[in-house]
């Protein structure tokens, strides 16, 4: 039995939440569906941990779906990089779901909750599938599963604010455009090579040489994934989707959705395209690099002027994605390490911050910064969590944010790109301003008259503080994360042909 489970771990990772989702819908109203979804995410997380442990040393698990021969059948391929991302996704899910019960009860009508948790599980399925599969078309399929589930999740925020509907609609259009671009790009690669397996694609693209079709495919995939990961200026769907989605959904999406897309980007850029031809690296440096830098500044400045806490954090996410993309465009091992470690670090930090926003929504009924005056006294633990998370967002030493920025600055200096390093630091200063605005409101401004605000319930505080604890723990002892990220980065570099340029 154990060995059977062990042999099929990669399949279980995806199949488990997939099968659980319809069951969840059948369980009926009440806490049953929630408890079931929780249980499923815990088991899913355990599977991810097992996969991570198995690949940490460097083994690559190749799993043949249904026993079909690779490259004809679908391959699930787990290496250090996606095991790390799987861990982020399933770990966030396992922490967000326990948190979700109270806030979902407040935001979603009881009879809709089973469907909500069903969509949640489907979303997890999709994100895990995107990450684990080694097949380009399969990525598209899971991308659609996760996206469709996400549209529904965002739209379910309409019980609180009708704007969630337009936000979900916009997200739907943009997400569909992105997915379509992606599948067009994959189609072009299929035209050249006749294969959809990622590893196989990598080999055959080299064999077939440079061509217009390849270039078109490259650009379509870049832009398609860019839309999904909210690369500036393709981020326009994100602020409203995050702001109006139910709080638990926002916390989960912020931690995972864009991260899975970043993973696909890394996988395609380094493993599939592998920088065989100069145009690929050039495109990254001429298009993605400037956009990443603009995102770091423009989105941070917008965040400074936002009044809605969730929207502010959403813009901050766009800026943080700028950092991740920046690390990618360095095309060095340190840069990639920075990007990958920031995947984790940002997931932890941003999930905690959005959870705090959720706590505010539950207790104060609002997350408008101007109405949060004096909340630090009424909700000390929640607000303290925000302060620590905010420090990590800024990148203060002893928080994970510092680790990411450290590697990023180091990578910039390695290349001798002083101006970029300075810009990284300067944009961090902007984070101080938007984090300070909240702290100022929470601690220094008087509470509005006649408002009663209770501290958030423990079921929400504990997951929040676990994320905060992680952001401190891995900020002080970054061995595990930075080693995992460093190994994943070197594996990516090895799988590409980038070395010929150095």
């Amino acid at each position, binding site marked *: 039995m154990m060995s059977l489970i062990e042999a099929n771990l990669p399949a279980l990772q995806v199949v488990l939440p997939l099968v659980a989702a319809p069951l969840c819908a059948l369980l009926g109203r009440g806490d049953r569906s929630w408890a079931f979804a929780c249980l499923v995410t815990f088991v899913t997380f355990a599977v991810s941990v097992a996969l991570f442990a198995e690949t940490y040393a460097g083994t690559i698990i190749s799993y043949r779906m249904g026993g079909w021969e690779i490259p004809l059948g679908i391959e699930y391929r787990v290496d250090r990089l996606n095991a790390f991302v799987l861990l982020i996704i399933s770990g966030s899910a396992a922490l967000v779901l326990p948190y979700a019960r109270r806030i979902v009860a407040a935001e979603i009508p009881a009879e809709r909750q089973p469907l909500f948790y069903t969509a949640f599980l489907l979303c997890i399925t999709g994100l895990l599938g995107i990450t684990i599969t080694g097949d380009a078309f399969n990525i598209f399929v899971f991308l659609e599963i996760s996206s469709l589930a996400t549209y529904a999740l965002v739209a379910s925020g309409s019980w609180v604010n009708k704007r969630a509907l337009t936000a979900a609609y*916009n997200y739907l259009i943009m997400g569909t455009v992105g997915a379509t671009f992606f599948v067009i790009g994959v189609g072009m690669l299929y035209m050249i090579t006749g294969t959809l397996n990622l590893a196989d694609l990598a080999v055959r693209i080299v064999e077939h040489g440079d061509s217009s079709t390849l270039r078109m495919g490259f650009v379509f995939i870049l832009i398609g994934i860019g839309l999904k990961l909210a690369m500036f200026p393709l981020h326009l769907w994100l602020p409203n989707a995050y702001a109006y989605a139910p709080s638990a959904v926002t916390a989960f999406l912020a931690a995972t959705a864009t991260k899975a897309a970043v993973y696909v980007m890394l996988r395609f850029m380094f493993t599939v395209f592998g920088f065989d031809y100069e145009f690929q690296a050039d495109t990254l440096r001429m298009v993605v690099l400037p956009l990443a830098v603009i995102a770091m500044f423009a989105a941070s400045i917008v965040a400074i002027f936002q009044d809605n806490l969730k929207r502010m954090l959403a813009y901050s996410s766009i800026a943080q994605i700028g950092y991740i993309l920046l690390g990618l465009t360095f095309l060095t091992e340190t840069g990639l390490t920075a990007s990958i470690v920031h995947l984790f670090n940002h997931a932890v930090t941003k999930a905690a911050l959005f959870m705090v926003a959720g706590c505010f929504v539950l207790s104060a009924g609002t997350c408008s910064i101007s109405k949060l005056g004096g909340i630090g006294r009424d909700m000390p633990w929640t607000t303290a969590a925000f302060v620590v998370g905010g420090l990590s967002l800024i990148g203060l030493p002893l928080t994970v944010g510092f680790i990411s920025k450290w590697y990023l600055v180091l990578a910039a200096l390695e290349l001798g790109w002083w101006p970029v390093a300075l810009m990284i630091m300067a944009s961090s200063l902007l984070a101080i301003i938007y984090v300070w605005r909240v702290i100022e409101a929470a601690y220094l401004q008087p509470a509005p008259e006649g408002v009663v605000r209770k501290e958030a319930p423990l079921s929400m505080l504990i997951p929040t503080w676990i994320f905060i604890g992680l952001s401190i723990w891995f900020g002080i002892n970054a061995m595990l994360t930075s080693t995992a990220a460093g190994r994943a980065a070197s594996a990516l570099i090895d799988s590409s042909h980038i070395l010929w340029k150095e």
Partner: protein
Amino acid sequence: MPEYLTPALAYVAAALLVPFVPKGALRGLYLAIVPLAGILIFWGLTPGTYNAFNVMGMQIGLMRVDALSQLFGLAFSVAAILAALYAWHLRDTIQQIATLLYAGSAMGAVFAADLITLFVFWEGTAIASVFLIWARRTEGSFAAGMRYLIVQIGSGVILIAGIVLLYRETGSIAFTAMELGSPATWTILAAIGIKCAFPFLHNWMHDAYPSATVTGTVVLSIFTTKLAIYALLRGFPGTELLIYIGIAMALFPIVFALLENDLRRVLTYSLNSQLGFMVVGAGIGTPLAINGAAAHAVASIFYQGLLFMSVGAILFRTGTARATALGGLYRTMPLTMIFCLVGAASISALPLTSGFVSKSMILSAGGYEKMFPVWIALLAASIGAILHTGLRLPYLAFFGSDGGLRPKEAPGGMLAAMGLTAALCIAIGVMPAAFYALLPNDVPYEPYTFSHTIVQLQLVAFVALAFALAVKRGLLPKAERGIVLDTDWIYRRLLSAILGSIGRLIAGLWKGAGRMIASSLNWGAGIVYHLHGPRGPFARTWPTGAMVMVVAFLLGMTLVVTYI
């Protein structure tokens, strides 16, 4: 002993518990026992690096145990115990906590095996110690504390800059001997130089130490500068430049010490001069010289501490440390007088005292290396020490013209601390072999040779004779009320005058430019707000069609780029 413990940690933990210990004898005992516990942690450990771990690819080592660090650790611990005894009467929780944190940071820095740890504790000593100055709670001490803090933190900032440069250069942050030559090592030396009170970097010391509380000055005199000496011995042994710096350091404070009226300021100048000896020792860099510098640092912790304690006792009882107001105190403070004389004998390097066995090592090291000018200069500095601290200070305080003050003898705790310290000074002088066994290098040395003893005795005798004659003839420079201007005149008066006129000039320009800048800043902020504010194009919710247009545009642009 458990490996994860470091003395610094024990001190910090103990400091956190201070408020919960009832004030009085129990707390006094508690404060004296903490350093003892600190000793237990590192004493008897086999040499090596403990508590080492890796942070972001840098090897951190919290606890390097070898002879040098153990020697300084032991000296700091014993001094901390004595200081706790001396402060037995004190009921000020802030000072007690600050003292423990300060001592803990100094211990942490001494045991640091890497520069990052050193930096952390380096700043720790700065921040903790400033409270000893502020604890006097006067406006002057607040300003002095602020200046002290700025300089000390500045030293730390320069240090971390040096560390970053060094890391870029060598890829290592290990705290080992460095070669002077690259920007990194120069920066690090400058940082240490500030703490060590190198000439022209020394003003903070004469500014801050006399401004601290009675007990605070004693504590301050123990740690900061000796920590810097330790850092020099560890980081820059055998750097020739240090010899010249050290000689200048040993010589130039003599004049100020001879003229100064405030006895605590006299002592800071003589401390500065003694530090010069140690810097010379570090600069010579032979095993014997390193031993000598380390030994002198340890001996000076105690005899300088003893002198500060006795002057502190006078200040505590009479409320002043100005020589013009004192004199004739031997009548009512005989014990303090005796202990002060032991300290004075030690700093004069009289045989059978600690100063003799330590200072002669540095002199001999210079002699063995045939550095005749060095030897002469140090001899001259020794004469100065005998003159200004060995003779003039006790003379002005306890003998000399009667100031008419009849204070009580110092309190019991102070007497006990001074007595023990005095005993330690003599014990080291009488039993040098036991003391030498603790020194970092294994070099046989015999201080009580015929020539050493005779030279030193002659020196002391002739200086004493000259001093007596000078007193008799009224040639002794009179202690005058007022402040002796040191080079700090440059920044206190000259610089402020220059800056003042520049300031007025700039103020004029500023007013004109200010309006322009303000309006252009407003204009710039307006543009930023226009673009990024809630209604700006970056923050607005865009219509779906426009979003798709952006996507199409970017796709087109990227396609064009790939074909360029």
